[in-house]
């Protein structure tokens, strides 16, 4: 039996591919075949395939954005054959909640992340700043401007600017949450005409202008990672997985000078963005190979796999953010200085209640409706144009409001 597995091309997944001998040794009758694709292409491919029931993949790597949507369509197989020793209850509750519907698990998390601030302790020290335990945006803005040293090529803060629902919109949505805003009100009316979004975007645009790096409008996670590793950013607010990269002395020039803090919030708003993301393995509903597929998923997301990675590649490289047990592991804590802040960030995230205001949707840095990919990207384009200096904040918001209304009306949310 051959399983065709669609995966994203990030480091953890690649590592898993290299370790599959362990799995095939245990399951000699199962062969694995990999389709590794860049995130956007992967999403596009698996979505087309599952929606048309193309049946090309037995195991799909999907985000916690897709899981509830697909599960609702009945496209995913319930994962009930993961084995007795799988220990579902060990999964982080926030993560697990995002992958379950009516108490049934439809995907198993391979790794998970939230977002937090990474900052340069040395620069902060130099500038005489001290990172508070719960920094506010006001503080972040001040600190960023203070640290910025254009002559030395140091930007006070690096933030995502590249257009895309999973790029700048992930960050901006989380930021808006922490500003007390939301995407939609209870009647699915878009909220870009509300002051929260205006504050968010204005603050963001000004900050990027004053303290952001060159070409910020095309920077995504990866570009910022590179900048930070090169020592060119004073702060960086992004996914928690980044911590393992910036603290890795092999690639990072600032590995020993990184401090971590929780996602900022606006003064008076008790919300830290609610960023929560996980890459998960799932099985299409019609699969003939459901049993073997679950065997594989069970292996790949098990504690055993974690130990396997730890043994072969060291504890710092194990996939983070899925199991409580990992954060209780002393060895991990020792190898990964970012373990505690990561766990704190994950615990703080609640995707069922992203905003302080009531919302009709779930999802932290995204809105878990099918239309969000398209809509988020379109809005992302507009906001990216603001960063690029091609559009004013007000225009961007007005247009964002307009396209959102249009899109939501077409999709039938707004009656």
């Amino acid at each position: 039996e051959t399983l065709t597995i669609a995966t994203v091309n990030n480091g953890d997944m690649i590592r898993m591919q290299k370790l599959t001998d362990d799995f095939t040794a245990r399951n000699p009758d199962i062969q694995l075949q990999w389709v590794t694709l860049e995130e956007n292409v992967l999403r596009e491919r698996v979505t087309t395939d599952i929606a048309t029931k193309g049946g090309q993949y037995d195991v799909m790597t999907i985000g916690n954005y897709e899981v509830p949507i697909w599960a609702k369509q009945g496209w995913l197989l319930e994962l009930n054959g993961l084995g007795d020793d799988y220990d579902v209850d060990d999964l982080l509750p926030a993560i697990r909640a995002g992958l379950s519907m009516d108490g049934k698990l439809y995907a198993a998390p391979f790794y998970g992340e939230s977002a937090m601030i990474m900052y340069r302790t040395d620069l902060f020290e130099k500038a005489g700043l001290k990172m508070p335990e719960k920094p506010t945006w006001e503080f972040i803005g001040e600190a960023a401007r203070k640290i910025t040293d254009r002559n030395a090529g140091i930007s006070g803060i690096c933030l995502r600017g590249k257009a895309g629902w999973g790029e700048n919109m992930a960050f901006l949505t989380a930021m808006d949450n922490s500003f007390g805003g939301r995407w939609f009100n209870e009647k699915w009316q878009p909220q870009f005409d509300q002051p929260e979004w205006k504050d968010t975007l204005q603050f963001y645009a000004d900050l990027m202008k004053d303290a952001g790096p060159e070409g910020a409008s095309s920077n995504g996670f990866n570009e910022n990672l590179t900048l930070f590793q090169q020592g060119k950013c004073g702060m960086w607010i992004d996914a928690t997985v980044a911590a393992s990269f910036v603290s890795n002395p092999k690639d990072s020039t600032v590995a020993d000078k990184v401090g971590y803090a929780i996602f900022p919030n606006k003064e008076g708003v008790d919300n830290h963005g609610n960023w929560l993301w996980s890459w998960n393995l799932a099985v299409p509903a019609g699969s003939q190979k459901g049993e073997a597929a679950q065997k594989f998923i069970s292996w790949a997301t098990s504690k055993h796999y974690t130990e396997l990675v730890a043994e072969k590649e060291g504890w710092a490289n194990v996939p983070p953010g899925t199991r409580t047990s990992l954060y209780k592991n002393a060895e991990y804590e020792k190898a990964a200085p970012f373990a505690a802040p990561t766990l704190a960030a994950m615990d703080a995230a609640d995707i069922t209640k992203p905003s302080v205001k009531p919302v009709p949707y779930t999802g932290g840095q995204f809105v878990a409706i099918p239309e969000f990919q398209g809509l988020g990207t379109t809005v992302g384009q507009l906001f990216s144009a603001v960063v690029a200096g091609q559009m004013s904040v007000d225009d961007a918001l007005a247009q964002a409001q307009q396209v959102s209304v249009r899109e939501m009306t077409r999709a039938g949310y707004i009656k």
Partner: protein
Amino acid sequence: MATRQTRSLARLMLAPSVILLLIWMIVPLAMTLWYSFQNYNLLNPAMRSFAGFDNYRYFYTDPAFFQAIANTLIIVLGVLAITVIGGILLALLLDQPMFGQGIVRILVISPFFVMPPVAALIWKNMIMHPGYGVLADVARFLGMRPVDWFAQYPLLSIVIIVAWQWLPFATLILLTALQSLDEEQKEAAEMDGANFLNRFRYIVLPHLSRAITVVILIQTIFLLAVYAEILVTTNGGPGYASTNLAFLIYRTALLSYDVGGASAGGVIAVVLANIVALFLMRAVGKNLDR
């Protein structure tokens, strides 16, 4: 070549290509037409219903629609202008006697062999990247601020990348045409007292007109469909600054999974492409018969 028998045989031999292409054209086109009148979102199959002209209205009223059409034209015309003019100049240069002509030619045609996504990746990451790109380094070396190409000049950047890919093609066709120019004709013009510029204007350029037509025709076909370069580099932005029609459809089809809308877009694009084709044939097609 003109007996009844050969004629009917000829029809028979033409049939497979025509039939295959007909199927290739009509089946998807028919399906596209059909879908274009359906409310059909891949992610929401339950909501499928008849939509009338909603999809068309929706696509047509997309805030990016008119800009996309304008961008499509800018890309096509911009790339054509660069490749045709650049191609002529380059062909003239390569036609001169020189050392290492073979290698030069190989170097010049190489971009044609690069697959579009790779070309876009190379330009985006190696050349135009505002931080690590070669152009940024050069700018810094010259004491200037690096240009953030994809943010500041998104459409121009796309045009440059696409033109880079097609310049070799144009150069090659024009070079071949140039070499087919009758030597005696050039000599006659020389005897008639024409200097280099006049020879180019009155002899070479008219001779190239047919080849230029071919370049324009073939490239237009491919240029109307440019999308991979956009997807890899600007993703259509910032704003809609680099969204062309093909990319708009792409966005509708593979980001919103709006099959109905994308189909309507496809139908609109087919219609527009055929208008362009008709226009092209009117404008330059007669050059082909000469």
